[in-house]
């Protein structure tokens, strides 16, 4: 499908061009992201995959505008990202719902910041809560929900601001495998329904193949682009795709690239743990 989009020659939704990020100074200088370039087309689902320590989260923070000081450029239209941009909606890996707000108040939060009148923001919040399948939990507080449900609240909260690009950092990392597959289904469904341009940061191979049109494979420290793989699995897609031969083929192919990086990462993990702070 991505091939078709490329043929239309639309301007990409986002261009990541030669991005470099270093932390520390002198002898302790660590290059977290090393000359990374790729772009994301309108409506495309792109995953960035790599072992822990490949600079994925740094890249997430740069694209989200939370880390303004970097070299190179992340462009949306003709704007260089250096602060949180209205076109980018972030979903975090950590538990990030507001415990003092119920589901609908959580989801309406971005609209509240924009000064949208109450009745309108409740309507819009309701629409996206319905989309993530939590319609009967609107009045519940996060403490009354499961981890997977709370993560769906976070996703709805980001979608309600109608970002051009949905940027997610391992949103399912804390969940069990079954929940993860089902949530993946939900994400695919929503993405296809909204034609939502999405960039997913992950270390989970099956998740990346299940969801993506393209996968950017990163190397272990310093984080460079090792390869970009087109995933030509049919759309519309469901989690059933996980059983297909083509799926297995992609997983094996990408694992081949990842194995070397993961092995290096593992060998390095002890010294990396000792190093001050993780730029993972």
């Amino acid at each position, binding site marked *: 499908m991505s091939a078709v989009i490329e043929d239309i020659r639309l301007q990409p939704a986002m261009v990541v061009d030669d991005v470099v990020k270093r932390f520390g100074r002198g002898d302790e200088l660590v290059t977290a992201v090393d000359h990374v370039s790729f772009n994301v087309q309108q409506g495309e689902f792109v995953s960035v995959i790599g072992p822990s320590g490949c600079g994925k989260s740094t890249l997430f923070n740069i694209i989200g505008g*939370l880390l303004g000081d970097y070299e190179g450029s992340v462009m949306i239209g003709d704007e260089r990202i250096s602060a949180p941009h*209205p076109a980018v909606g*972030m979903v975090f890996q950590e538990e990030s719902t*507001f415990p003092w707000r119920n589901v609908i108040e959580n989801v309406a*939060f971005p609209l509240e910041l924009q000064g949208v009148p109450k009745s309108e923001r409740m309507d819009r919040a309701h629409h996206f809560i319905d989309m993530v*399948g939590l319609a009967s939990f609107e009045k519940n507080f996060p403490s009354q929900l499961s981890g997977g449900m709370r993560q769906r609240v976070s996703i709805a909260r980001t979608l309600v*601001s109608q970002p051009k690009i949905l940027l997610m950092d391992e949103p399912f990392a804390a969940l069990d495998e*079954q929940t993860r597959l089902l949530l993946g289904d939900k994400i695919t469904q929503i993405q296809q329904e909204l034609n939502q341009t999405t960039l997913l940061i992950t270390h989970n191979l099956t998740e990346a193949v299940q969801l993506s049109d393209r996968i950017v494979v990163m190397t272990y420290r310093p984080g460079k682009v090792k390869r970009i793989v087109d995933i030509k699995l049919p759309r519309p897609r469901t989690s059933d795709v996980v059983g297909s031969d083509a799926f297995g083929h992609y997983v094996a192919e990408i694992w081949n690239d990842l194995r070397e990086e993961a092995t290096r990462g593992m060998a390095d993990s002890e010294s990396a743990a000792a190093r001050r702070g993780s730029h993972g």
Partner: protein
Amino acid sequence: MAATGEMKAPARRAVAPAIGGAPVTARAVLLVRVVVALAILAVWEGLSRSGLFYGEVIPSLTRIVASLGKLLVDPVFYKNLQVTALETFTSLAIGAALGVVTGIVLGANRFLMRAFEPYVYYLSPTPRIILFPVMIMWFGVGPASKVALGALSAYFAVALSTAAGMRQIDAILIRVGRSFRATGWQMATKIYLPAMRVPILNGIRLGMGTAIITVLLAETKLSNQGLGYMIMQVYTRFDMPGLYAILIVVFAIAGACNALIGKLAREQV
């Protein structure tokens, strides 16, 4: 697919199991409390009738109740109550406002926190009453000196509690606010303050306790109005039932205020 394949997780706050065998039920707890209260009253009455104590030191319950009834219809009592309540409320409002601001500034800034920590920590347990003579010189013998002293004592409790609450805010919530491009004011009112509501209210509860203590104490030392002053008046008259009646009223009011703020802190956490 609401909740498909997802187990409903236990609530974030788990209740610790009771130590010891019997399950803790609200009724059993209430029963014990009532029994303890009745036992204290019985012992009191027993001592009062035993004649072991000098005269009026332990007056009988009936006399205390009679005094309490008289007190509650005495306009002088209400005038004094009003003075003390106003002093306490004013000192708490001033102390808490300054304390919240200080707590936020110290909690938000690591450098300032390290610089000022020793002052706050070592000054806060110092009995404020020793500063009373200074306050009298600065603010006079009227309510102002009590308010100043009460504010000072409430201030430390609120500042420490707010600073601690500030540092306990989940960093992810702040990143969420930034990612949605919240303004500074929106960050403060929609993220920081609600996230710190419980520690701030706990600080105010502690601050209120010390403000009441300090104000009453100051009133007993040097003043011509307020409940503290009234306590000293009945004491000099050696009106023991009257004294106990005032104490009961003070306990009841302080307890009610405490319960009210505690309830606010627990709501919708």
